């Protein structure tokens, strides 16, 4: 039989500290990148496609720009847009999911139909179609990805609402005279938020990936601005001559997404009073 090593509470806490420390360093680099690396768009043809060195940790691209500084500049754009997108999507998803689950009947049927329509569309293709109509641009990118993103939230919120609205504490609050708005706001919403938060953090990573893939295809962020997907696209052209160009952006992208997911799990554990009890 295999023996599982159970982490003690102290070890778990240390782990959380390590993750948060790493994430903090990355976040500082990402958020303050325009001040730390002010000349990331400066073109210098003498430094074209250099290998990683002490001056240029990730090497340089075909225009001789330092890849390390561009990665963090690019992540800044991605992270910011992704946060905005997920905030919009979460708000729409929560509102529609709560109403759909709580009211039921025809309202629920209508929203379910809409959700099916949205979910049936492959996100990237629908996004490209929308961008083709609205034209490229950062605002379009945000609108398109928010419009495509709310369904995942709405589905979970709806199903959780269906569960919670039948629970006795909701009936109890109703019996005490609580209005529907009170019950939705005070009883169902906080309980529904718990399963949604890990998804929301997961979706931030997902959003970063979506922005990157649209930029990779040329529909997202436009050059000369730095963006991870855009950089990966450019690097792919030189994959035989300078394969290291893919490594830096790839690692940072993977790390940021993984750390955000870990943070999401930590937040959920922190918010769940029942989970805290079990750790003692």
């Amino acid at each position: 039989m295999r023996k599982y090593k159970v982490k003690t509470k102290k070890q778990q806490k240390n782990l959380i500290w390590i993750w948060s420390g790493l994430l903090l360093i990355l976040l500082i680099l990402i958020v303050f990148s325009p001040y730390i690396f002010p000349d990331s768009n400066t073109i210098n043809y003498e430094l074209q496609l250099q290998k990683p060195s002490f001056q240029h940790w990730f090497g340089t691209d075909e225009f001789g720009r330092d890849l390390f500084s561009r990665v963090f500049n690019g992540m800044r754009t991605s992270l910011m847009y992704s946060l905005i997108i997920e905030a919009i999507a979460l708000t729409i998803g929560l509102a529609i999911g709560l109403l759909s689950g709580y009211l039921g009947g025809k309202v629920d049927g209508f929203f379910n139909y809409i959700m099916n329509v949205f979910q049936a569309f492959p996100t990237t293709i629908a996004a490209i179609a929308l961008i083709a109509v609205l034209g490229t641009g950062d605002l379009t990118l945000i609108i398109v990805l928010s419009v495509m993103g709310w369904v995942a939230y709405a589905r979970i919120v709806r199903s959780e609402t269906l569960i919670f609205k039948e629970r006795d504490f909701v009936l109890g609050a109703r019996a005490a005279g609580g209005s529907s708005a009170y019950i939705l706001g005070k009883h169902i919403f906080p309980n529904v938020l718990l399963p949604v938060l890990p998804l929301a953090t997961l979706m931030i990573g997902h959003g970063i990936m979506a922005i990157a893939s649209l930029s990779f295809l040329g529909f997202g962020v436009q050059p000369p601005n730095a963006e991870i997907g855009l950089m990966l696209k450019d690097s792919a052209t030189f994959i035989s001559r300078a394969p290291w160009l893919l490594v830096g952006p790839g690692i940072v992208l993977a790390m940021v997404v993984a750390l955000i997911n870990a943070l999401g799990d930590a937040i959920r554990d922190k918010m769940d009073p029942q989970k805290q009890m079990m750790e003692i």
Partner: protein
Amino acid sequence: MSYLIEAKHLSKVFKDKESTVFKKKEIIAVDDVSLTINRGESVGIVGESGCGKSMLGKMLVGLTLPTKGSVNYDGNEISKLPYSEIKKLRPRLQPIFQDADSTLNPKFTVKKLIEEPFVINDISKSDANQRIDELLSYVNLGKELYGRYPHEISGGQRQRLGLARALSLKPDFIVADEPAASLDSSVQAQILQLLNQMKSNHGLGLVYVSHNLRIVSMMTEKVNVMYLGSFVETGDTQDVFDNPVHPYTKMLIGSVLTIDGDKRKLGKTKVFGEPPDPKNRATGCAFHPRCDCCTQICKEERPILKKVGDKNRFVACHNM
């Protein structure tokens, strides 16, 4: 004088998930039930799991609207009142739920839980605090629990907290759905005493839903025996328990376990057969597949409640 609660021909029907446009399937949870409750009176509802007891209770306090029939509170039909009136009425009718775990919002602390009914009804802080002190001493809970969450207190404490919440707005009518099921005997006695006290001192009307026949016989003056959504026998508790007429009542009472063995068993009828499936209701008398005195008419015609003897006793059976 009107009754505190008067339920007339209540039915609750659910659409079955398997039903199609061509074939309509229905689940009849409660089927044409009428009952009345006076102030200061307690009425028991007994029956097997899934016979519709809890659904009936929810309809009586207005948490679920009946498919057919009406519930009158003090002469007013609840389902026909405007929303503003219903909001005023709600605190008068309180449920106590079976499952204490799900009665309390897991995200609320004990303090928030006990204060909630007062917050909802805009009762001033000082009045509320005075009432809360009173309630906590009623149900024997201390303020040291205030910072805890429902999963951090014991099942008995949860149940008592639920009771305190139900009593907090001084209701006229309580439907207690197995309030003592998860409690140990000593706490059970406390809770039941408290309910009895409320009943005699404040004229509380009580419906006690349970399958614990001994508690029902202790707590109630009238009893209704329910089988598959409808009453099969109703009458004064003492009378029904001493002298059950319906074969199902005999079976229920015969199944009560006592400490001194068989001595106090009333009927010798053994429990047999399985609890019925509401989707495939038997024709005629719903109980006939399990009944040992079943005749041809039982399979064909549905019995209605008929008066038996000179007391307030009604039984739905062909073979009396």
